[in-house]
């Protein structure tokens, strides 16, 4: 049997709050083999975002391990984690988090530059992705000149720029109206499938979660199939 693409073992994350230890994740177990879409649902504050931050190398666990393609990312130093985030992970947050001083195209070019990809290839890839999300004609627009839905579509394109193995989407439609939310969903799932990525989606939107191949519920700090 092939090695899992993502293996989360006994993952614990606790925070000190008001003199008490708050244990948000209490031994989360998750294994994903090959390209797949996985949705994690749960109430607000249940730890969905914390789980994604740990898998994305934005945070460090209190205990347990996160192994991506055979590498335990909890053992990486800051520089290695930066390289991991740059090359292996694409993030789509609830808020678009585009860089305000850069055009839509530049927002896509920067991840390529950070990963030291060749300039011509990066530009071609960025233009292609903007075309994929229906924003080829808005390449020169700054985030402030785009609508909310357009910004989130640029954010989806940016997440895919470096052909990551893993897309981590944290409430990607949470800030959008119904129409724009559906538009983003309709782009996200096919694009992730086309690129051969694994999508780990945190949402409390059950309709959105229903589109994933596998669904889990995070409650009481423990992950269980939904």
């Amino acid at each position, binding site marked *: 049997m092939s090695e899992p693409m993502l293996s989360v073992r006994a993952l614990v994350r606790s925070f000190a709050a008001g003199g008490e230890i708050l244990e948000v994740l209490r031994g989360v177990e998750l294994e994903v083999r090959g390209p797949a879409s996985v949705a994690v649902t749960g109430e607000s504050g249940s730890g969905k975002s914390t789980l994604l931050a740990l898998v994305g190398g934005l945070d460090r666990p209190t205990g347990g391990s996160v192994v991506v393609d055979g590498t335990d990312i909890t053992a990486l130093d800051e520089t290695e984690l930066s390289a991991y985030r740059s090359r292996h992970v694409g993030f789509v947050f609830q808020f678009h988090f585009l*860089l305000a001083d850069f055009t839509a195209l530049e927002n896509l070019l920067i991840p390529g530059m950070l990963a030291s990809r060749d300039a011509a290839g990066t530009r071609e890839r960025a233009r292609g992705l903007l075309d994929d999300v229906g924003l080829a004609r808005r390449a020169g627009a700054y985030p402030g000149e785009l609508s909310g839905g357009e910004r989130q579509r640029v954010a989806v394109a940016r997440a895919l720029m470096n052909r990551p193995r893993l897309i981590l989407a944290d409430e990607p439609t949470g800030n959008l109206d119904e129409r724009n939310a559906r538009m983003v969903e309709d782009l996200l799932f096919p694009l992730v499938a086309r690129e051969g990525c694994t999508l780990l989606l945190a949402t409390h939107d059950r309709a959105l979660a229903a589109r994933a191949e596998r669904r889990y519920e995070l409650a009481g700090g423990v992950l269980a199939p939904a």
Partner: protein
Amino acid sequence: MSVSVFLGLRALRGRSGTGRYLRGAVAGIALGLVPLVVVMEVSTGMIDGITARLLEVGSSHLQASLPAALGADDLVAAARAVERLAGVRSATAERQGTVLLALGQRSAGVTLRCVDPAGFARDAGLQRYLTAAEGSLDLDEPRTVLVSAALARTLGARTGDSVLAVAGLAGDAAVLPRVTRLVVGGVYETGYQELDKAVAYAPLADADTALPSRGVRTLLDVKVADPFADLAAVASRVAEALGPDARVSSWRDLERSRLASFETTRWLLVLIMGLVAAVAAANVSSTVLMLVLERRQEIGILLGIGARPAVLTRSFLLAGLAAAAAGTALGIAAGLLLAVNINGLIAVIDRLLNFAAGLAALARAPFIRGGAGAGVRLTLFQSAYYLQSIPVRIRAGEVIAAGSATLLIACLAAYLPARRAGLLAPLEVLRRS
């Protein structure tokens, strides 16, 4: 283009408005550097101008003191002999002493320099800085005296006037005055009144009658090819040619204290202005800090999508350095522009000051019995103590050093806040956003 440069340059013209901090730093550094560059270049020109006049008109490059008993013909012959030595450009025989020049009721104590007219005319350096304000500057006619413009003003003398040179004549029991009538052949200027305000020239032949019987110095004013080179060898040749009774001194010995005083003043000014520029350069630190604080979200996003901390540190350092470089270039350019136009600028400020003073006098006039009167003419720089026209000389090395030091200080100042950008925790920043 590297991603650090790309991010850093964009911070300079940020649409989000953070570029204003960097533009402030550019202006601060430029304004800090302007006085430094002006002081450096103007004071350099001033000192060089004064030094050149001291060397050519004052002490000469080498000065040989000879026994007073040496006759005029022997003195001129000694000058000719010295002129033939290797490295010597010219040598002029001279006797000098203190006399009182008088015209009518006015008089002034002066150093009367009685020089060999031929040597005086041959001395290219002297002739370059001695310009005729009136009459001619030759001493071929006996009983001729050349007076400086300042002295002419003091005495109220003009070309053709007869002045009396009153010298002390030592008798058996008392000093008796000896009076010689001299005709003003010309009025000269050196451009540095401190040097010429109490000096007059007369022919060497008149030394015996016009100079006092005691306290007269017998000299050879020697000019060499390069006065700023080591003069030990040529001084030794001159001393050897003149014999054991001669004492040879270089201009460095004779003017040491005066030049040291100029240099000390100059460095003090440069230090003070340098501190202003250094403070402006160090201010880049707060600029970069503000930039980092205002761009926290951008930093968080970039760290989140995989930017290494070093990339962010470099980009903010580059933004700070680019601002410092722009400020340095602007400051140096503006400073040099002001420096090369300093004479015109002083004239304009003088005119403005006097215009303002005139307006103030007019405004006061109705309240002052008898009107405002003629008023006092204001002068920003008294040319009596400085050169009449400041000869600005640009020393590229000094300007480059000042610019490099500014950039270095800015770089050091920007490093810590720039490093702070790389140390932010991305998740924390994104959560707060």
